[in-house]
């Protein structure tokens, strides 16, 4: 009877994707099925996700879809990283240009004073 108190639990327990896939393809035992379904009853996201995933016509394609989405995400994050790097180098580049201009101006100033202070022959 103490299992009654389980009704009050709002589980935030996670389920690994492989187990979810096995559940969808009916590979789990009755006991394991009940465990997954208990998580579904406790967790609205899980419940929505399973109901949605069951609507895919070809369950076998799910792996490929997930793979494709993850690759797209990785590409985006990689690009973001490169943009960040380029921005950093861009900033560094600006600093060097600024330093070069200052150095050139200083050299011109020194040259000016040197030329001015050389006594005429």
């Amino acid at each position, binding site marked *: 009877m103490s299992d009654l108190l389980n009704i009050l639990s709002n589980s935030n327990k996670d389920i690994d994707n492989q187990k979810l896939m096995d559940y969808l393809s009916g590979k789990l035992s009755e006991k394991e099925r009940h465990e997954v379904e*208990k998580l579904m009853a406790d967790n609205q996201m899980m419940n929505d996700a399973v109901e949605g*995933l069951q609507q895919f016509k070809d369950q076998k394609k799910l792996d490929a879809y997930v793979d494709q989405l993850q690759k797209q995400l990785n590409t985006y994050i990689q690009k973001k990283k490169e943009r960040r790097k380029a921005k950093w180098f861009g900033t560094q580049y600006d600093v060097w240009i600024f330093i070069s201009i200052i150095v050139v101006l200083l050299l011109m100033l020194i040259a000016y004073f040197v030329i001015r202070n050389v006594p005429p022959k």
Partner: protein
Amino acid sequence: MMRSDKHAEFSDQQLLENYYQDGKAEWLGILLPRYTLLLLGVCMKYLRNEEEAKDCVQQVFLKAITELNKYKVDYFKAWIYMVAKNHCLMKIRDKQGRQSVEIKDHHVQTTDELLDGNPHIEKDELLSRMSNALEHLNDEQKQCIILFYLEKRSYQEIVERTGYTLMQVKSHIQNGKRNLKIMLEKKREGENKNR
């Protein structure tokens, strides 16, 4: 076969904290893929179209990357679920040209909260209240709750035993569970008022 998470030693919370510390999107590149399958399911449930669901997951990822940069999120799973759901509803609304209400998280009290709020209630007392509340459920809900939580039957077994459809079984369990919580909360509120 699903690829296993190479960074399983990091919890969602740790990955988020790392991201907030150094701002490197690579941390999100570990965190977000953990939710690809769940998000794909959630988007499919609301949009009922495979291509749209895939696009939606991609958009949710981008939205997450942008939004996480702006403010601190404490409970990632609940947050990403809300982002996905609201994004789907926005898409449905755009399609239908109708107004839709934004979904807000509904907080339901858990066992600990029901006990914490009232230290006078012992677990045994809570259990006896639960059994009592169970008797007040309608027959369908009571039957499904007993088969699911006490006899630990799967949805399919309950369908076969009761003759209800899968949707009915799920709905009886959900509604029964909600009604039990409401009954217990009401009882507790009544006691607090009398004190």
